[in-house]
């Protein structure tokens, strides 16, 4: 090869990788035993799995008492999770105190919500605008009247009776759809050039972000009555909604601000040069770009909000977690060693499914729009 001229006459065919770089063995070597240290970690990991999986399997499935089981089975010495308890109290976990004969109403709301939300989430489905309007404007109104009743001959059901997953979903859906625009307004206010508005927005955002949600809800439950004119009361659900929404909107504002700051100046100037007014500029040019940038942050906020709904026990709402806790504490007929654990695990699974779903959806959208941050 020292001679310069060289022309390859026959192409070297692609040949399979040597056994140590491909195939199952290679995968094992690369991912499990790349270095001796890796091997050690793998073995320790396996030891850990061997240690933890069988007891978990036995608890969740092996020795668990299925939905048809009885409390006596749950009370057996080596019984696992008591799923029978969950299935027997399921109604309370989903609807709270909602009148049993009227439970078709929340069911319709659930179905309607799913029906409107799913096409909204799938990018390929058309009529997005109509769909969004239906979901954000029509659906809440319909749901409210359907759930609260008092019209069209529906039996009125006060919000105190709503509970369980129903309340969790209501608070999170309303919280998400209200805190989003509110957060945008706050973010715009914070970017504003008007000192009074800017200061107010900053003060609001920083104050809310500085304190735990629990204190905001404490305020909603204990101090709000003091702030209202004598004799005025605010519905508890509304209080929880307002508390959670205000709280989230402050965080949302910070996320949106991040997006706004990422928009180059040129975009603002271009908008202005087209003669668009402030709101037109924001609506048509700035926000669509800014929001796209911060989808992961927004969804993270939604996930936090969804998890934070569990704090509404402070205002005495029986959301899913509180409903489970109530039954754990009061369903004496189901008392057994694992009843409480099973209850909490059930709630954990429900929360997990929703949060995990949201985070996966966000990742999917991120990939689709390809605007996600690297981190």
């Amino acid at each position: 090869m020292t001679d310069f001229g060289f022309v390859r006459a026959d192409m070297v065919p692609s040949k399979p990788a040597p056994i140590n770089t491909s195939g199952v063995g290679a995968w094992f070597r690369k991912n499990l035993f790349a270095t001796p240290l890796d091997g050690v970690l793998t073995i320790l990991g396996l030891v850990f799995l061997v240690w933890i999986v069988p007891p978990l399997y036995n608890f969740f499935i092996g020795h668990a008492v299925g939905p048809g089981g009885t409390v006596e089975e749950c009370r057996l010495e080596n019984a696992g999770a008591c799923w029978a308890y969950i299935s027997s109290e399921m109604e309370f976990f989903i609807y709270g105190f909602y009148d049993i004969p009227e439970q078709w109403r929340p069911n319709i709301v659930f179905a309607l919500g799913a029906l409107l939300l799913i096409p909204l989430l799938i990018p390929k489905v058309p009529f997005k605008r109509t769909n969004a309007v239906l979901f954000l404007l029509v659906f809440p109104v319909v749901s409210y009247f359907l759930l609260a009743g008092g019209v069209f001959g529906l039996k009125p059901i006060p919000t105190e009776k709503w509970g369980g997953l129903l309340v969790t979903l209501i608070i999170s859906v309303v919280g998400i759809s209200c805190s989003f625009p509110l957060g945008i307004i706050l973010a715009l206010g914070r970017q504003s050039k008007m000192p009074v508005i800017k200061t107010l927005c900053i003060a609001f955002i920083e104050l809310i972000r500085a304190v735990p949600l629990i204190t905001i809800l404490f305020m909603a439950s204990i101090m709000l009555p003091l702030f209202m004119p004598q004799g005025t009361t605010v519905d508890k659900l509304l209080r929880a909604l307002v508390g959670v929404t205000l709280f989230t909107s402050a965080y949302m504002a910070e996320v949106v601000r991040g997006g706004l700051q990422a928009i180059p100046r040129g975009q603002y100037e271009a908008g202005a040069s087209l003669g668009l007014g402030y709101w037109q500029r924001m609506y048509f040019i700035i926000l669509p770009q800014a929001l796209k940038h911060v989808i992961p942050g927004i969804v993270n906020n939604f996930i936090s909000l969804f998890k934070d709904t569990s704090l509404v026990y402070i205002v005495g709402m029986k959301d899913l977690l509180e409903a489970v806790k109530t039954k754990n504490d009061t369903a004496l007929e189901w008392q057994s060693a694992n009843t409480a654990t099973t209850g909490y695990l059930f709630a954990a699974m429900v929360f997990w499914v929703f949060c995990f779903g949201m985070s996966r959806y966000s990742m999917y959208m991120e990939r689709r729009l390809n605007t996600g941050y690297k981190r």
Partner: protein
Amino acid sequence: MTTLDTGPAAAPRVAFYNDPVIRGIIYQVVVAVLLVTFIAWIVGNTATNLAAQNKTTGFDFLWKTAGFDISFSLLPWSRGSYYWEAFLVGITNTLLVAFIGIILATMLGFTIGIARLSSNFIVARLATIYIETIRNIPLLLQLFFWYFAVLKAMPAVRESLALPLDIFINQRGLMVPRPTPDQEFTWVLVTFGLALAGAIALGIWATRVRTLTGKYPREVVLAGKVADACVTFLVAFTALFILFSVAFPLSHAPLVAAVVAVVLAAFSLTRFAAISRGVLTFLIAFVLLDTIVGAMFAWVPSLLVSVLSAMIALTIARVGYVGALSRPPSEARFPLALLVLIALGVPGLVYWLTGATLVFEVPVLQRFNFVGGLQLPPEFVALAFGLTIYTAAFIAETVRGGIQAVSRGQTEAAQSLGLKDGDRLRLVVVPQAMRVIIPPLTSQYLNLTKNSSLGAAIGYPELVNVFAGTSLNQTGRAIECIAMVMLVYLTLSLLTSAIMNWYNARVSLVER
């Protein structure tokens, strides 16, 4: 809220006002007026309501006796204490659990975050499962779980779970030994502080000399060698001692251990240092593995466990051996062992010389209860545990993000310059990763502190529970109590963000 009511949608449509400046002023005046009205309305309502309920306001209640018990307090507390003391107790309890949570969560979070980036499939997957499980479940639920489902299911006192180092866990919480230092022990503490400062100063000095001259100072290198040997001896002796007195009981265990340790220490000074290191690694790994795996699989014959542990430990020892082979000579190595020895050895010497005693008051199971030691109530344990586990998942993601933010190119550039792995991490990767990690890490710390308020739900007497809960309930001074609580959190938050701003200004990358 008011700021929203006055969306510029209410803009006057008169042409005269279309001047943006005037319009801006008008908007602001409208907002300000609305806000002031709103506040006045609230204040008025509040005053009326309080008057109607025949309630008084003001902070005079702080100087009244509280008359309730607080189950856990670092400060002296009795029913006769004042409300302001309750306030302080709440703050200290919050800070205590936050402090412990932060330390533990940082350790766990960094481990998990690094594990998640591991090229090892199982390790990375376990870390992912951990993170995805934990951060998608509400913290409150996790606290309930730890408190009501796990701690309550812990064994009763007499069947306490005995952990090493005289730590016990049972329904009543965690019992740990309580250090009871005597008067002379103050000197040990003072020396420790001095020695630590000295060791750090020595480290800095040695590094500076290393930078300026290309070599560590001769004396330091020599002392480092000796320190290496000493550390080798100490570690080997401890491991062997445990091995021979617990795992494989041997008569004259201390003597045998000492002899072997001396041999290992001597080897570590020669060119057979790598072998010495391999043996040392084996010893530590084996002792640890045998204990832990033995505890995990109590039903497996101990011989099997020992053999398995020995095999794993051998592999680890090989890693250690190879690592030691490629170690730079002591002249080019940072004298870590020396510094550790100074920081710990000097106080140890003072401890021995002054005859100071630090006796650990061990919790002892008396007929019905543990007596002595530090008894941490289950609420504290559950809260600290829950906060740690939960926050660690977020810290792990932060850490992962930070490490990933340092592009592969940086690593490659460092590699191509011939920097060794340790130097590469120390000089290139960590400084860059940390500047990405620290801001979100701080906000995680702040979140942890704020989340500690959920302790109220399981009865841990932290600030919200003690002050916005019990005190408020006793006094009925809702506004005052909640305002004070919020003020504490606000202060913490503002302080943190001030420090962060300072830090960010200091480390932010200079860009064009």
